[in-house]
């Protein structure tokens, strides 16, 4: 029993990070109906930028802020330079193009920073809290991760539900024609969706790097988990992405705890297939309602 609790506790922060990654995928999907397989490649790239800033200035926080800004910029660049031109031709082309972006970013990162894994130490203590005479697998750093994710998700939900820009973005996703007829510059809103996704991914990258190491391909595995969470959540739903992101993190922690962490991707795949068999539209999707 105590094992079970330990595994769950240990899975919270990675679940929160997977939630962010899933959120990024959903933001892009909602704005342009493209699954961005380069999302974590972008996050890897901005995390390297954070590492460089950190090495130069000694500030983890400054690294995070610069990475977030870089995430915005990279998101907009990928949207305008790759996705928009390709999507004008056809949508499946755009999805393949995101693979191209992933490969290009990984190659570029290897050229700039080298292919060897680099350490990205946590900014604060990452050993578990002590209580009731034992050490629990939840550290001050896990708390920082959790707090950052909660803050970002709340901030995003305020932007989406309480501001004009958020309303314009949601309307552009639901019905671009009505949005344009209302005077919304829909193309800008789509670019903004990519930008915010880039920012969210950048935060996820900086937060997750201390849990492993940083290399051009070290985030690839998270794409599997984030994609699973996003699809099960319905691809359309921000709430679904967050809920199933955390859920996926916990499941992975349990699987890794009771068997071996190398089984985690397989379990994610099984979850994905089960979902596609029994609830293909996702658990939180609005698709059914919108088809009417």
């Amino acid at each position, binding site marked *: 029993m105590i094992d079970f609790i330990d595994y769950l506790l240990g899975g919270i922060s990675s679940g929160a990070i997977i939630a962010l990654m899933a959120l990024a995928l959903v933001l892009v999907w909602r704005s342009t109906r493209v699954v961005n397989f380069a999302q974590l490649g972008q996050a890897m790239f901005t995390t390297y930028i954070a590492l460089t800033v950190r090495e130069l200035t000694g500030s983890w926080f400054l690294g995070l802020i610069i990475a977030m800004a870089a995430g915005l910029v990279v998101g907009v660049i990928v949207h305008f330079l790759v996705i928009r031109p390709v999507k004008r031709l056809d949508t499946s082309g755009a999805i393949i193009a995101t693979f191209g972006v992933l490969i290009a970013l990984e190659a570029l990162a290897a050229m700039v920073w080298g292919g060897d894994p680099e350490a990205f130490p946590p900014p604060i203590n990452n050993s578990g809290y002590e209580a009731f005479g034992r050490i629990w697998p939840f550290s001050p750093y896990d708390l920082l991760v959790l707090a950052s994710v909660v803050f970002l998700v709340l901030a995003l939900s305020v932007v989406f539900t309480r501001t*004009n820009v958020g*309303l*314009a973005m*949601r*309307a552009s996703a*639901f*019905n671009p*024609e*009505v*949005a*344009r*007829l*209302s*005077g*919304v*510059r*829909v193309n800008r809103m789509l670019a903004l969706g990519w930008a915010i996704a880039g920012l969210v991914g950048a935060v996820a990258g900086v937060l997750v790097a201390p849990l492993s190491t940083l290399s051009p391909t070290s985030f690839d595995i998270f794409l599997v988990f984030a994609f699973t969470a996003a699809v099960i959540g319905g691809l359309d739903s921000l709430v679904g992405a967050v809920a199933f992101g955390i859920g996926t993190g916990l499941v992975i922690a349990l699987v890794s705890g009771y068997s071996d962490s190398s089984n985690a991707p397989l379990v994610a795949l099984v979850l994905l297939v089960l979902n596609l068999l029994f609830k293909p539209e996702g658990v939180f999707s*609005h698709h059914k*309602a*919108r088809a*009417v």
Partner: protein
Amino acid sequence: MLRIDALSVNYGAVEALKNVSLDVPPGRVTAVIGANGAGKSTLMRTLAGLEKPLAGRGLFNDEDITGSKPEDIVRMGIALVPEGRSTIPDLTVEENLKLGGMWRTHAQRATSLTRVYALFPVLGERRHLRADTLSGGERQQLAIGRALMTGPQALLLDEPSLGLAPLIVTQILELVEHMARDSGLAVLLVEQNAATALRVAKTGIVLNLGEIVKSGPAREIAQDEELRHAYLGY
């Protein structure tokens, strides 16, 4: 105010509009009537910037709007309520309204919102409900309300009667007619439902297979038996 000058629109080989010219003056309703497939929606969508014409122009206050984007045309003061229920079901009633005219000042939008709620009180009562909980008639009011939120000088209504009970249609159209008279709004109404449209319109224009076959005072068109049999089917 709004003038359509020798407009032709094709979809591939389909000639949807052929050399159509008409005027939409302020302060009244101008009705374009015609059977399904006559080209009514094409006319409206082209004016709103959603379709590109093959030839001809749209002029608004003597300014050429041909080739402008929909989001720019609505900012100039031409608002389209497209065919079907052009509301966003996932948004609340008030969010659907607030979507219209975001570029306007806070004060302008607040004034418009108050006005829309005064015009369609049911929208005010339901402002926090999702749009998909509304009835068909309420959603049509919401769609018109969203267009009014953009502060238009010209309002384009594409078959507002579609799927609504006749009584509700009459109510909505009479409201629009009053609004046109009171505030100098230019209204272009297209309808299959000729009788209702011609009742509120000053001028009637009959469109058949992309061509204007008749135009004149609405009352005369409504009484023209031959025209009715030939093009309007009643």
